[in-house]
């Protein structure tokens, strides 16, 4: 076996250029695999974090009727004032933060220009900042305070409407009783959050202001919870128990996983996509190795014939080719691993800016357009093993071809 290994490595050294070129193809594939997988992992985890940080919290409480018609943002299927107080007490008991929110559809316009549809959320700024991270994403102006009469808009909205800090927007909407309402509201703050769904669609005013103008009568459409440990449990089970013991049977809970099920379904589909990427990388590796090994076999048919004539077993010749392929695989995979770590390191700390490519495109993830990477040592190890195994597997066919010819024909082969 030792001789076979020495023979294989001497063959590798004998054809340095070819060995390097094939290894480069493998290393490119492995680098892509490590980098893309790390990026997709980051995008998926970041999306899930953003669903909690900017859209739903850990879970929400709403009326059953609201749950059924959530997409229409009805303001008449709501939690009443006394129920809200009971829910605050439940939140305290479970050690969670709770924020009442009422979202309503609005047409926003600036200087009598086109009206663009947004969802405006009436929030209690203090409580909302305990559950959601919008406050930390203010890029211009200030976050809302309890008595603020202004509106918090997103960077995307600023771009769409062409309005900036201090400008007055007209908000057209309906009150709880379906009456038209139109208000002129000053932009007091602009936020830029990494969740594109929030950035594109959500604006914020205070509950006090909504109370005064939208006949909300102390109600809230939903109450979002953020747990202290970051997980749904055990707070969710405690909240469910408390709701039923407090007689709040008209209310229901929904977790961020249920509320963000559209994204999570999409995420599963995307995972299928990343399997495709791995498959393509396998093709790159396989084509490179097969090509190199076939060339080696055809080049050395007379040598093989000679070895077989001298009594070397076919099994040993096949093994020497397999070891040679494994050598290319090891070299390529290790270079790929180093390159992959390098590219990933850059992406982990600096990110790659896809703003110009994605612009306003809906790319499915709840992330910003700067894509980062997440370290994934398991995947790195898998990629190296995958690179070597691929090389070995695809070399079996050309290696077997090498010993199929008659010895006499091999020796005379031109």
């Amino acid at each position, binding site marked *: 076996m030792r001789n076979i290994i020495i023979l294989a490595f001497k063959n590798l050294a004998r054809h340095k250029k070819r060995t390097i070129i094939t290894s480069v193809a493998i290393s490119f594939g492995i680098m892509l695999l490590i980098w893309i997988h790390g990026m997709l992992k980051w995008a998926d985890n970041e999306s899930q974090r953003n669903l909690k940080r900017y859209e739903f919290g850990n879970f929400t409480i709403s009326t059953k009727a609201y749950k059924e*018609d959530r997409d*229409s943002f009805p303001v008449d299927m709501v939690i009443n004032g006394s129920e809200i107080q009971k829910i605050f007490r439940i939140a305290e008991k479970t050690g969670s933060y709770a924020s009442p929110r009422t979202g309503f559809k609005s047409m926003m*316009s600036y200087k009598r*220009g086109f009206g663009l549809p947004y969802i405006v959320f009436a929030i209690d700024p203090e409580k909302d900042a305990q559950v959601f991270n919008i406050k930390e994403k203010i890029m211009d102006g200030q976050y809302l305070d309890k008595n603020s009469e202004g509106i918090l808009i997103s960077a995307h909205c600023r771009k769409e409407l062409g309005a900036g800090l201090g400008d007055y927007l007209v908000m*057209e909407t*309906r009150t709880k009783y379906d*009456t*038209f309402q*139109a208000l002129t509201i000053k932009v007091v703050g602009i936020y830029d959050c990494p969740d594109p769904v929030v950035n594109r669609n959500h604006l914020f005013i205070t509950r006090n202001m909504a109370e005064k103008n939208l006949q909300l009568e102390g109600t809230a459409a939903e109450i979002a919870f953020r747990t202290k440990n970051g997980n749904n449990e055990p707070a969710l089970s405690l909240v469910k128990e408390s709701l039923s013991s407090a007689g709040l049977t008209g209310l229901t809970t929904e977790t961020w996983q249920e509320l963000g099920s559209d994204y999570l379904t999409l995420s599963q589909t995307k995972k299928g996509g990343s399997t495709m990427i791995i498959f393509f990388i396998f093709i790159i590796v396989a084509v490179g190795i097969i090509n190199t090994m076939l060339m080696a076999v055809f080049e050395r048919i007379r040598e093989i014939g000679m070895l077989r004539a001298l009594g070397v077993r076919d099994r040993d010749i096949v093994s020497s080719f397999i070891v040679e392929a494994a050598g290319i695989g090891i070299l390529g995979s290790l270079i790929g691993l180093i390159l992959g770590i390098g590219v990933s390191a850059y992406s982990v700390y600096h990110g790659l800016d896809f703003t110009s490519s994605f612009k306003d495109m809906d790319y499915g993830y709840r992330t910003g357009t700067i894509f980062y990477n997440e370290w994934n040592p398991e995947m790195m190890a898998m990629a190296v093993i995958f690179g070597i195994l691929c090389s070995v597997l695809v070399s079996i066919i050309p290696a077997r071809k090498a010993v199929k010819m008659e010895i006499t024909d091999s020796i005379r082969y031109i």
Partner: protein
Amino acid sequence: MKKCIVSLLTIIFVSFLAQNIFALTPEEILNKVDDNEVFDTIKYSGVMTIKKGSRRRPRVKTFQAVARGKDKAYIEFTNPGDRGTKYLKLGDELWIKGTYAERADKISGHKLRDSMMGSDYSYEDTMDNEKLVDRYKATIAGAEKVSGHDCYELDLEAKVKEITYARLKIWVDKEQFVAMKIQYFALSGMLLKEMTVDKVKKINERYFPIKVRMVNKQRKDSYTLFEMKSIVLDEPVSESMFSKQQLEK
């Protein structure tokens, strides 16, 4: 001289009395408007010209409409592009069947508030057939000429909570009792839309506005011209017109 002054004062007093005794109350004016404009049934061919912004060319939508009372209405679009799109309103429900759809979809009640085919009318605006007098408390604010017609100027404040517009200002023709101009206000008092009547037709002893222009006061160069042709009022309409079968036909 004394006699002269007494007779003059008597004339002024009598004419003042006559004006106040025989003048119409705001409710009576609204009742007369409702008598003209609220129907049992209606059938017509409609043309809607929608203009949005100075850069866009107006879009024209044509349709056939049938309605009964305030709860039932059926609209079928006939213009190229929307041909085959049908709407059915049954109470608070709105059903829509798209051109290529095989089945009708029920749209949530909240969708009734949305703009109809991108116009300045919401679905509920076009299908509204409720009496003004039932929903608003009116006061006379003055008199003004609108499009050459002498009009009463009325301020209408909502007297029910669930209402689309909290306040209206309407100008009613003193002779025909047609609302020649209506201003629609938001709860905050902001002017949202202004409707003016371009053409009135006498149908079955009532005056009915058949061409109206709705201007969105919150948008530049945005209006919808709504014209009704071949109107038939208060004739029997088959119940089958307001069925899902008709919608999915």
